[in-house]
């Protein structure tokens, strides 16, 4: 029953006073906010800033999409430097075009000259160019002009420099206009290239992030976790088993991988080895009764099946190790062979290399999870079935060992992170003391009492997700760029990390929102925890999971457009460059591309979502 605080009854006077107080406080907060965010009118009203802003705005309004064919027409007028005794104007004409320069001479750089023209191409930009005298032919731009609707213009300018000569000097009046599009501008080509990179970056991050976040969402769903409880002995034997499993899996896989070099490094031998190993793995699964018997199994037959699966897994793993050696060579060869589709070959080479590097850790993790499951199951069943004395003994031993392992791990981490370099004082002794204390404490605990492991896991995972989620990918990318270098790879990692956290939370909330009825019904049939997830939870969460994945892909595309500002590759990287180089017309192209892509994806994903839900 929800207990709500009883609402106090205030007299009207007090209530009015309270309202006034709230208004005053709000007023103070907002006025301070205005000062704190430096909102002012001085800077924006300053003419120079306004001019700059308008110039940027106008550049942005004319995105540099294309290159154009141009037509240029020019005519000359002469000028004297310095002025003679008599100062007058001069006029030249060429066809319909007439230009008048008054005065037609300059003695200082302060004198204002006026050039008027008529009969030019209407509404066309032009340039005034001075050909200074001298052996080297150079020109200097004097000013620009733009003709009106009748083809007239009038501009004032001053000579930037005075070079006295006897002869009149030439000033060129040049009109320039575009006759047609001749192709895409460099900015457009870069934009296309980078926007593709951006979309693909978001795609990879979303895919990997979604896959990782699904299992996380189950262990961070309160309704699934809060019922999970285990006796202390089960938890602690799980911890010990996890460490043993991880270590064993890692060492075994490393051994298998180095074993793949035993036969020499010839690709044909490697390939042959892989084929033989795969055949052996397949055979060990196929010969004899089916490994995945659909019936309930006796412990004996389950153990035999487990042994066969383990054997097949070892064979297959070393098969993959052999294949990876070949794969690296094959991939590089294929990359050269395929030319423009060389990326397929590079992918194989990378995948093979990734396996060789990451397999020990991954296999260790998986095996660790399995031994964790078996270890805790053993601990649980033992404590629940055995008589009190052995159960207590098991609890004490398991807790001692488990605590020692945890303390050892934590100590080793601190020792490494802070470069203390004193392993004995930070691992062995604390582990012995911690284990002893843990065992002593366990002696006072009722062995069968259930520990809220589920709720603890839930709280820990949720907290970690919240911390990861609260930091923007832009911050992560700076860190990742240090590790993997500036570029899209860093962006993929940053977005993936953020996606895992964000989707993990969103997904787990969907799990929490499922209707409890089917879950209850499946529980009542005697299903195990995993069966409950597969049969009652997953069917209910498929539509929202798809919807949220699309939504996230949408967000990731948007984020990947700015992640380049932090060194994460994609369109943001070149956009930041363009802005820093004051190339606003190029920047405008990129901004428009971002708007189009984000808008389109937004539309597509909302369409798909509305169809699924």
């Amino acid at each position, binding site marked *: 029953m929800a207990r709500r605080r009883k609402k106090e009854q205030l007299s009207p006077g007090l209530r009015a006073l309270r309202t006034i107080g709230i208004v005053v406080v709000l007023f103070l907060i907002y006025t301070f906010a205005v000062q704190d965010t430096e909102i002012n009118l001085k800077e924006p009203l300053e003419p120079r800033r306004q001019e700059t802003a308008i110039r940027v705005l106008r550049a942005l309004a004319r995105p540099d999409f294309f290159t154009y064919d141009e037509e240029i027409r020019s005519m000359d007028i002469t000028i004297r430097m310095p002025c003679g005794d008599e100062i007058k104007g001069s006029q030249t004409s060429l066809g319909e075009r007439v230009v008048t320069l008054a005065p037609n001479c300059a003695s200082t750089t302060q004198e204002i000259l006026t050039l008027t023209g008529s009969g030019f191409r209407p509404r066309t930009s032009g340039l005034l160019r001075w050909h200074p005298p001298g052996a080297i032919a150079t020109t200097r731009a004097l000013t620009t002009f733009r003709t009106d609707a009748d083809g007239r213009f009038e501009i004032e300018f001053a000579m930037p420099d005075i070079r006295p000569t006897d002869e009149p000097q030439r000033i060129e009046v040049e009109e320039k206009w575009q006759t047609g599009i001749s192709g895409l501008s460099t900015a457009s080509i870069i934009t296309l290239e980078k926007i593709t990179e951006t979309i693909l970056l978001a795609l990879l991050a979303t895919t990997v992030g979604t896959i990782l976040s699904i299992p996380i969402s189950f262990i961070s769903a309160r309704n699934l976790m809060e019922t999970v409880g285990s006796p202390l002995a089960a938890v602690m034997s799980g911890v010990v088993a996890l460490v043993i499993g991880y270590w064993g899996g890692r060492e075994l896989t490393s051994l298998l991988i180095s074993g793949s070099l035993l036969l020499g490094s010839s690709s044909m031998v490697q390939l042959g080895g892989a084929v033989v190993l795969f055949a052996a793995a397949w055979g060990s699964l196929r010969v004899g009764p089916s490994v995945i018997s*659909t019936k309930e199994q006796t412990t004996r037959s389950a153990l035999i099946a487990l042994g066969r699966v383990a054997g097949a897994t070892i064979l297959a793993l070393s098969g993959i190790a052999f294949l990876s050696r070949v794969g690296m060579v094959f991939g590089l060869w294929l990359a050269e062979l395929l030319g423009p589709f060389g990326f397929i070959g590079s992918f194989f080479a990378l995948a093979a290399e990734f396996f060789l590097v990451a397999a020990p850790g991954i296999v260790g993790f998986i095996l660790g999870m399995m031994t964790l499951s078996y270890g805790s199951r053993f601990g649980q069943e033992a404590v629940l079935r055995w008589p009190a004395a052995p159960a207590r003994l098991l609890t004490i031993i398991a807790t001692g060992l488990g605590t020692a392992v945890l303390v050892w791990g934590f100590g080793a981490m601190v020792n490494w992170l802070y470069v203390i370099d004193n392993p004995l004082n930070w691992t062995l002794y604390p582990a012995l003391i911690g284990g002893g204390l843990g065992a002593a404490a366990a002696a006072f605990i009722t062995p069968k009492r259930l520990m809220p492991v589920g709720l603890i896991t839930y709280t820990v995972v949720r907290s970690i997700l919240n911390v990861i989620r609260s930091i923007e990918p832009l911050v992560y990318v700076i860190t990742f760029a240090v590790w993997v270098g500036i570029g899209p790879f860093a962006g993929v990692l940053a977005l993936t990390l953020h996606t895992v956290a964000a989707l993990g939370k969103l997904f787990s909330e969907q799990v929490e929102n499922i209707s409890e009825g089917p879950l209850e019904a499946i529980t*009542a*049939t*005697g299903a195990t925890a995993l069966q409950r997830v597969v049969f009652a939870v997953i*069917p209910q969460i498929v539509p929202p999971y798809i919807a949220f994945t699309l939504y996230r892909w949408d967000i990731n595309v948007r984020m990947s457009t700015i992640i380049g500002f932090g060194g994460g590759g994609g369109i943001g990287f070149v956009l930041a460059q363009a802005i820093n180089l004051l190339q606003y017309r190029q920047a405008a192209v990129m901004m428009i591309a971002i708007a189009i892509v984000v808008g389109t994806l937004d539309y597509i994903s909302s369409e798909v979502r509305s169809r699924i839900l």
Partner: protein
Amino acid sequence: MLRVTNLTKIYDDGTKALDRVSFEVPRGQFLTVVGLSGSGKSTLLRCINRLIDPTEGEIWWNDLQLSHVTGEELRRARRRIGMIFQQFNLVDRSSVLTNVLSGRLGYVNPIASMLGRFPTEDVAMARANLERVRIADKINNRADELSGGQKQRVGIARALMQEPEIMLADEPVASLDPVLAHSIMRQLKQIAQEDNITVLVSLHFLDLVQQYGDRVIALNEGRLVFEGKPNEIDDRRFKEIYGQEAERIG
């Protein structure tokens, strides 16, 4: 034989849902449980298959102390206790066949079942049970395409897959119209007799109780207020069960 002694359930917020309830049910009996909403009927049924853990008291099922088993043993006990629900509790987006097969989850190899593989005998059994509740033609439909009465039949088929010794039915017909209600109750009664299943069914309406129940227990605010034959409920006892304000309508 199911024996409940001094069963008490106090929820975390302090609500006392069951207060020292004791009764016995012999094998094969069709026991009805009546009482107002909130009288503890659902809690009682859920304590028996331990969807809810009782606070105090004991439940014995033959030689098994059902109130105190845990882990693997609890799972093994649950698989012989079928349950059907007022809201049917089918998995809407799964097929009727999958829903029915999920009744076997306690018996099959967990890994194989999660890969969607069930023994052929179990699939045959699912078909047989769907035929038994006369809905075999819907076997490949999605569960949310069925009507209420059909859903409850699937719910019964699912419970039958457990080869239950005990069947718990939590207001199985409260969401159905009177005609369907009778049809479902008849079916339940018939199956219980044929398979010698002990049934505990909670019901709202006395006419259903009197028509189908071998015996009746009544709960009021978590306490057992009546135990006996359905036709022994007269006007005075009725008011004890349902309160002084109540009028007999059924």
